[in-house]
């Protein structure tokens, strides 16, 4: 379990996310969309990044997930510099070390809740239909309170249930970090409270770091209530370290 949690050589755990001098702008456009001097998130830490809409929060997450390359600076995920791995290797790293939760969840239609989680295991770790995979899927869904829905097609689930499946999928491969992009924006306030709580608990149980971005002021309250740290506008702080 410890090794899978990203324990580095000699048992010293690498930082889940280490960003330095990160800048990004689209080719040909003048202003920086993302400009983060330094950001370190350690294993098990959780941080809420709040910033107004259009400030580049989603772009930051895409940079951290390695689906977008920085214009300047470096990003290391679980001790691996993203710029040192490319192509299929980076895809594999993302599958194994990074989990993502989206505002609209992006569950694969036509597949059951269980299959959606199993898909992450198949692509991330390459396990297929093994007992270990099956037990991981039911453990996660159970922990998020949707265990009995494993065999149901995701299209038949309520929005709240889908959100839980999405969190379970993000955690499937025991990632070093979960990146959540407005994960509760599709939920009503009551469900959003519970969902935030569950997401934080689930990440804590797996010792996964959590970086959550939101423009919703209510999210900050939920996060603090649930024991998460907050960074108001990561783009304007010189050095951001987060206490858990």
């Amino acid at each position: 379990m410890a090794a899978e949690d990203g324990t580095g050589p000699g048992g010293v755990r690498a930082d889940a996310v280490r960003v330095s001098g990160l800048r990004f702008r689209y080719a040909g456009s003048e202003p920086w969309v993302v400009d983060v001097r330094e950001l370190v998130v350690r294993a098990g830490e959780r941080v809420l990044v709040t910033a107004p809409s259009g400030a580049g929060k989603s772009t930051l997450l895409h940079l951290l997930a390695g689906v977008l390359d920085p214009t300047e600076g470096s990003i290391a995920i679980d001790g691996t510099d993203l710029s040192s791995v490319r192509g299929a290797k980076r895809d594999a790293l993302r599958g194994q070390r990074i989990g993502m939760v989206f505002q609209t969840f992006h569950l694969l239609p036509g597949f059951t809740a269980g299959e959606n989680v199993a898909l992450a295991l198949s692509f991330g770790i390459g396990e297929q239909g093994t007992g270990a995979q099956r037990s991981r899927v039911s453990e996660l869904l159970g922990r998020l309170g949707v265990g009995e829905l494993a065999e149901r097609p995701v299209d038949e689930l309520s929005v709240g249930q889908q959100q839980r499946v999405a969190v379970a999928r993000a955690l499937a491969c025991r990632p070093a970090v979960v990146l959540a992009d407005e994960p509760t924006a599709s939920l009503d306030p009551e469900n959003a409270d519970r969902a935030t709580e569950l997401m934080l608990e689930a990440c804590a149980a797996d010792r996964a770091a959590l970086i959550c971005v939101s423009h919703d002021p209510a999210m900050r309250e939920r996060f603090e209530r649930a024991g998460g740290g907050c960074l108001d506008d990561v783009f304007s702080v010189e050095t951001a370290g987060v206490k858990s």
Partner: protein
Amino acid sequence: MSGVSPSRIVLRSMSSRLLSTVITVLTVAVAVSLMLLLLGLRDAARDSLSRGTGNMHLLVSRDASPLDAVLNGIFYASPPRAAFPMAKFDQLSSSFPFEWAVPTQLGDSYRGLRVLATTDAYFDHFEPVMGEPWVVAEGRIFEDTFDLVLGSEAARLTGLGLGDTAVLTHGFSDHEDHEGHVHDEYTFTVTGILAPSGTLHDRALFKTLEATWVVHAHDNRKLRADGPIELTKVEDLTDRERLITGMYARVFSRPGRDSSAAIQQVFDRLRADPTVTVAQPAQQLRRLFSVVGNIEGVLLVMALVVLVSSGLGIMLALYNSMAQRRRQIAVLRVLGASRGKVFELVLTESLVIGLVGAMLGLAGAVVGAGLVGGVFSARVGLDLTPVVLTPVGVYVALGAVVLSGLAGLIPALMAYRTSVHRNLRPMA
């Protein structure tokens, strides 16, 4: 709960667009079936027509054209237009260097099957397939005037056996219930059944020339007489009543030497005789094939067009689905699938469509071949059952799979190039 393998993703993707998938699979199947049937039919037609001329070099008749002579005289298409006296046969056969010559007469039928009147020489010299002489499976060849010998198929179709009797019908009536004139004064007895030769001759019944002369002479005399007359006998026949419609002949040739020059010489001399039509069956068949070949070419091109358009159909179906699938593909990439993997998934989908289509097409062609063969043997009396499971057939099926793969390349490339970042941005 079972794991989710890539093949499962492909199947799920296909079943989520079931109608489109089924239609594209069917177009591939139809194209493959059509192609295989056409190819098979062509081969069957060539094979069937090439057999049957056997070791004959020349065919003499009084048909309108040499092609008619071959179609009527060897393939029993319709009764020859005109007859000529047996004396003409005797004259021709003695004045040319023939290895053998056989007189034939066509015009009667039994339950839609052709009856060929001839002599023992037909069985002794004419080989329906080169190098494969007739074999008598049961009984014997003619001993009496009203003996009847059956081709293997004729025996099977009529159910007649040795010792059974039959009366023949005037003309080629193709239907049992057709009211033809029945020569019911004369009864024939089955005395022999031939082994199969794999040619149209197997569907024929054989009788003696004398029998056919007597039957027809009697009919004519009855027409001319006022009252009832006595049965006509062989001894009563006049030379004008001894008519035949054809002559099979083989030009004498020394073993191992090319006989084409000798055949051509005899052919040219016979052609100078304005009272007969002479044909070199092999040449006529080549002509026939070249005419039919053009039609085949057109049909094959059409089948190819269907095949190519089925490929385009696959491409279009996948291409259209890409719009909805971009987000899905982006999600798979987030879950750790590489660009190569998503390329592979889409390509696999097109290959699966091609493979299922090709297999259905093969099955369809096999069923279709049976139907086509049945129709042809019932209507034309030719065994044209196409053989579809040939190496060429397998190549056609494989070609369809390859084509499907090619059709999947562009959509697969689109999947490969799908931007994760652009497709996972929160909706505006």
